[in-house]
């Protein structure tokens, strides 16, 4: 088998719902503990110990929810699109399930980012909503999530639903670079990124360290909820197989 040389073994193992169920079961408690630790610690640090901003005072603290939620909404979409591509190319059932499970989580993150942004925008900018490129592209991301969810539940046949939503997820992928670079390509009211991987953050360390903790905490939270939804989905779709019946009988 020549293909094994450049595609690792775990990739094919992931294709087995049973293996996937078992490995996520082992990973889940670790991720849950880390999530709890990071989110609790990060929240206390961000709200009580991080210094206030010189212009906005304490209202800037909403950044500790807004930025992680916005990052996660985009990361979850990219994961969804990759899962869609894998599902289309390799016809992997687990990839279809990942796509279906990631959509509602990503949609809630997008809602959280839009809401916290609006709440911050009213006192800071003087407006709840402005139709600038960043805000509009983020709203489109939310609608794309809704579209994927709607397609998935509207089509009865599981594999047709997966195919249709995978194509939609891939088409919507073009929106991700638009969101990211909207603040650089066009004049927008939204400020450019404070926090990037490549550059020094435009805030002092005692402000961005709790933000980093919150971002990692949000990623872990996403992993936890994705794994839980995925496990539910696996059990439901494999309900007629021997190993699931055995599992249910044991309980």
């Amino acid at each position: 088998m020549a293909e094994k040389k450049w595609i690792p073994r775990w990739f094919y193992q992931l294709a087995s719902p049973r293996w996937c169920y078992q490995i996520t079961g082992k990973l889940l408690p670790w991720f849950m503990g880390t999530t709890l630790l990071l989110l609790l610690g990060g929240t206390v640090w961000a709200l009580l110990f991080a210094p206030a901003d010189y212009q906005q005072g304490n209202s800037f603290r909403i950044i500790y929810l807004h930025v992680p939620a916005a990052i996660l909404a985009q990361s979850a979409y990219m994961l969804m699109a990759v899962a869609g591509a894998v599902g289309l190319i390799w016809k992997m059932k687990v990839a279809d399930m990942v796509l279906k499970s990631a959509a509602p989580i990503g949609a809630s993150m997008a809602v959280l980012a839009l809401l916290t942004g609006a709440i911050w925008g009213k006192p800071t900018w003087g407006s709840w909503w402005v139709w600038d490129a960043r805000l509009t592209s983020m709203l489109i991301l939310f609608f794309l999530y809704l579209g994927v969810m709607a397609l998935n539940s509207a089509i009865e046949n599981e594999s047709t639903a997966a195919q249709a939503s995978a194509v939609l997820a891939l088409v919507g992928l073009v929106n991700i670079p638009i969101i990211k670079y909207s603040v650089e390509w066009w004049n927008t009211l939204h400020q450019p990124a404070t926090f990037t991987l490549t550059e020094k953050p435009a805030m002092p360390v005692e402000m961005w360290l709790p933000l980093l903790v919150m971002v990692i905490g949000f990623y872990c939270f996403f992993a936890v909820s994705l794994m839980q939804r995925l496990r539910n989905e696996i059990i439901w779709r494999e309900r007629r197989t021997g190993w699931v019946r055995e599992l249910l009988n044991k309980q």
Partner: protein
Amino acid sequence: MTPKRKQRLFLVLFIVVGVGISVGLTLFALSQNINLFYSPTQIAAGEAPQDTRIRAGGMVVEGSIKRDPDSLFVSFEITDYDKTVTVEYVGILPDLFREGQGIVAQGSMNEHGVLDAVEVLAKHDENYMPPEVAEALAKAGKMPMPEGQEFNK
């Protein structure tokens, strides 16, 4: 990879690249319309349409704010460090409005070349810092001013 999978891989790549190119070209064609505001230089060069509602963005010029003591009328100048536009507004200004702050005003240009604003929004930059740091930086004259560059695009 089996030929069948390879074929589907190319199909997926075709979708992503094809949509990317078409949306990219559309946005490129629309690029002016997506901008939220015109800079004072663009307005001075006549790029902003007359007799219709536009947005103008710039930094509030130091010492240019004139308030009417009996009403909410306020007049100020905005600049991109090249050209300047005068803005007149009646209403409540956002918290962050001050001299040297980046703002976006929506309204229409009148015959005197003054923008009659119906809405004034404050633009925040990406810099956050504690008050003590801001004070120290201002004293040393090293306050970052990225908004100016941005309005000067």
